[in-house]
């Protein structure tokens, strides 16, 4: 057996809910897997699908966009925008060979540190089973 695969997972967390939940998890000394790297964004609706593709291109094995629950968005509708994009983006990713489990959208309330941790743990487990992202089959070399 080789070394255990430690997936790299990027989470875009909205400032008002998911990031606040991560903060709460921290101040309450709750533990979550170190595989998750969090980038704070003002709103889940601001996460351009180009950035998700960029994250995968730069070596992320999984990407999570975490925003406020429906109806709770600080900017009223940003999370619905995220939802529309996520559904279309997931379909595209699947066509490109990125398994659907590698990209998810989650609603996490500011007070719900527990959910944040559950999502993180579940994601790490699932991606560990899938292994590293392998979009392109071996293509060989030319000379």
């Amino acid at each position: 057996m080789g070394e255990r695969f430690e997936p790299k997972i990027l989470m875009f967390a909205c400032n008002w809910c998911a990031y606040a939940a991560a903060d709460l998890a921290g101040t309450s000394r709750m533990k979550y897997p170190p595989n998750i790297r969090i980038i704070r964004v003002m709103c889940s609706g601001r996460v351009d699908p180009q950035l998700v593709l960029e994250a995968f291109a730069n070596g992320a094995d999984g990407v999570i966009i975490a925003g406020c629950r429906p109806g709770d968005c600080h900017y009223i509708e940003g999370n619905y925008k995220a939802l529309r994009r996520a559904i279309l983006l997931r379909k595209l990713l699947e066509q490109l060979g990125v398994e659907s489990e590698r990209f998810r959208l989650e609603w996490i309330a500011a007070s719900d540190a527990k959910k944040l941790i559950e999502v993180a743990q579940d994601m790490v487990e699932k991606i560990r089973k899938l292994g590293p992202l392998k979009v392109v089959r071996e293509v060989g070399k030319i000379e």
Partner: protein
Amino acid sequence: MSEGKIRIAFYWMASCGGCEEAQVDAVSDEPSLINILDIVFWPVAVDFKKEDVEKLPDKSVDVALINGGVRLSEHVEMARLLRRKAKIVIAYGACASWGGVPGLANLYSREEILSRVYSEVPTVYERDRKPMVKYVAEEGVELELPEFLPILLPLNAVIEVDYYIPGCPPTPETTLNALKMLLSGKIPPKGSVIGASQRALCDECPLNATKPEKILVKKISRIYNTRIDPGKCLLAQGIPCLGPSTRGGCTALCPKAAMPCIGCYGPLETHIDYGGKVISFLASIIDSKDEREIARIIEEGLPDPAGLVYKFTLPASRLRLNLMKWGGRSV
């Protein structure tokens, strides 16, 4: 450029011939060009051989215009040869620039493609079924045929490219703009897209005046079963028109003919990934907050996102580009 003449070479790789048509059209629009173009290589029309190019001194060709994607070992060889002989190499058209339509084949492996084409389709004869690199012709002559590469690559994956002329094919106007720019001696920075606009297609589209500030639709329509109003912005009618994310320069040919832009002039400089950009604005026009309803609208109106958003750019897309190792360099 010597004696007021431009020594020019044309080459086609995995190409449909449309780019050649466009080049001929451009010269027909500006016949005075004939007098200054000194054609040294043009496989589609003139009987020069590879040896003729090999015999030319290095850097003795002013410009090489190369179209089509890199799909065969022969394309790699010829592209490298032309790179040695030419001062300026231009990727001409969508295929050479980002892979183009034939680049969609990268959604499948070489084995899948060959098996489909040579075994599964019912119209092929048994004797023609196997693609081969070594082949003995009827006269007994042994031939070595080029290899079908594992994936299709844009030109800049195998050689350094100086400029890009976008389009499928580039319009004669775009082609002439680019040639005139080079002739004027106003040399743009290496890697520039030339002959086209620096702004999005919507900016030059006559229907832009009818485009509302915010578009929201309950249905994304497909053109085969939709009656399109030719006087109204197509996106506002729920037709996926890629004008907002596509480089201008074609004078909005498709929307002017009541057809959506499918993105053949490719991305603008500010884009990270063309397909991601399209996903971003297309999803935003869906007028629903309900997950099931959104999924249904997408399923019905956008059944093949990859074919739509990467119709011309899949081999150069951010995800593919970075993860592919080709000939020791990341492309």
